């Protein structure tokens, strides 16, 4: 059920603008006579799909000498369609949109609790005087993470995926229409906490950043190879907890490089502020390249 208008939603993603009193937009259909107002920014449109399937069944009387079974004849249609083609097309559109505005978009992915939101809070505090930053938060439910980002004074939009386990390019496009980030800025996309599904969905970002913490076990790159293969950079967080956990940093980096020889690895402790300057330097290099 939609908490704003009380009508039942279709479980589709919900976009909430935290800096706008929590206005939200969502994709669902209303029956006749039911309407509610919502605000559209410039260039914001809805797609309405009208699928009409008409079945025309005709009954004919045939006189057959014997009983004949009609087997419908079939034809083979070669499709050769990439299943993710639609997402890839929308991702390419997002990528062009970012490039046209000189915006650096980064897709941040990790398991739940690795420290994505903490990393963003700290990064915003340290760099907001230097770079124009905004955030798109992806979670199944709640605006808790977006509220944490908003508390730093940063522009933020929350996408709630409902049952969805990842952001896709269409959800991001909708989030971007609400966020409306300025040109020459950085957009952090905090994906749904999940090391499996987000690896498969290109959003149109410039780089994929995977974050893992030392409490997760040093063999994680081997257990979730798709994610570590897709990533451009690995941020190994919570190094301040190393005395309390059985985690071999060098072994973990070795596994990550085995899965993805080109991956860059930055170790840090967001809570203690250790080695964050290397991450900021990496960010500055990407901004220059964008």
């Amino acid at each position, binding site marked *: 059920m939609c908490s704003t208008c009380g009508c039942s939603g279709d479980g589709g993603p919900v976009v909430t603008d935290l800096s706008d009193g929590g206005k939200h937009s969502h994709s669902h259909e209303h029956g006749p006579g039911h309407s509610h107002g919502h605000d559209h920014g410039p260039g914001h449109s809805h797609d309405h799909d009208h699928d009409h399937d008409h079945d025309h069944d005709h009954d004919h009387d045939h006189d057959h000498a014997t009983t004949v079974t009609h087997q*419908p*004849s079939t034809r083979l249609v070669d499709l*050769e369609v990439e*299943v993710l083609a639609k997402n890839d097309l929308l991702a390419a559109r997002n990528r062009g949109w970012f490039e046209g505005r000189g915006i650096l978009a980064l897709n941040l992915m990790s398991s739940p609790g690795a420290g994505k939101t903490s990393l963003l809070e700290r990064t915003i505090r340290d760099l907001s005087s230097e770079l124009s930053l905004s955030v798109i938060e992806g979670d199944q439910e709640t605006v808790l993470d977006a509220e944490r980002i908003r508390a730093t004074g940063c522009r933020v939009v929350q996408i709630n995926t409902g049952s969805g*386990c990842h952001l896709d390019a269409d959800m991001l496009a909708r989030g971007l229409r609400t966020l409306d980030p300025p040109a020459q800025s950085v957009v952090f996309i905090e994906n749904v906490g999940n090391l499996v599904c987000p690896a498969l969905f290109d959003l149109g970002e410039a780089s994929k950043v995977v974050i893992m913490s030392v409490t997760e076990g040093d063999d994680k790159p081997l257990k979730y190879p798709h994610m570590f293969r897709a990533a451009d950079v690995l941020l190994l967080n919570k190094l301040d907890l190393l005395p309390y956990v059985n985690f071999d940093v060098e072994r973990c980096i070795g596994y990550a490089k085995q*899965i993805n020889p080109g991956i860059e690895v930055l170790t840090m402790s967001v809570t203690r502020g250790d080695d964050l300057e290397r991450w900021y330097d990496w960010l500055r290099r990407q901004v220059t390249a964008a």
Partner: protein
Amino acid sequence: MHELSITESLVSAILERVDGRVQTVTLVIGRLSGLVPESVRFCFDICTQGTRLEGAALDIIELPGRARCLACDQEFELPDAIPLCACGSANLEIISGQELKIKHVEVEV
């Protein structure tokens, strides 16, 4: 469970492209694609309900992973997503196994 949204998108991709009732769908899924064929089968029955694909047979052609080692130039089969050549190098180019494609469909005429 990304198989659900991927199966939804493959069903809508087929409905957009062909008219008429679909009897058979043939997919190509590479072993390195990150997709579990059995999960796709499970989702396919759910996603096709009430569409022209309802009741269609699902054929899945699974392709093995193949890679070329950029250190020793050997080409070999890659059984899983962990890239490692017998020479010890992990610097590989994956040449097949990441496919995720609708090959063809059989439609009633």
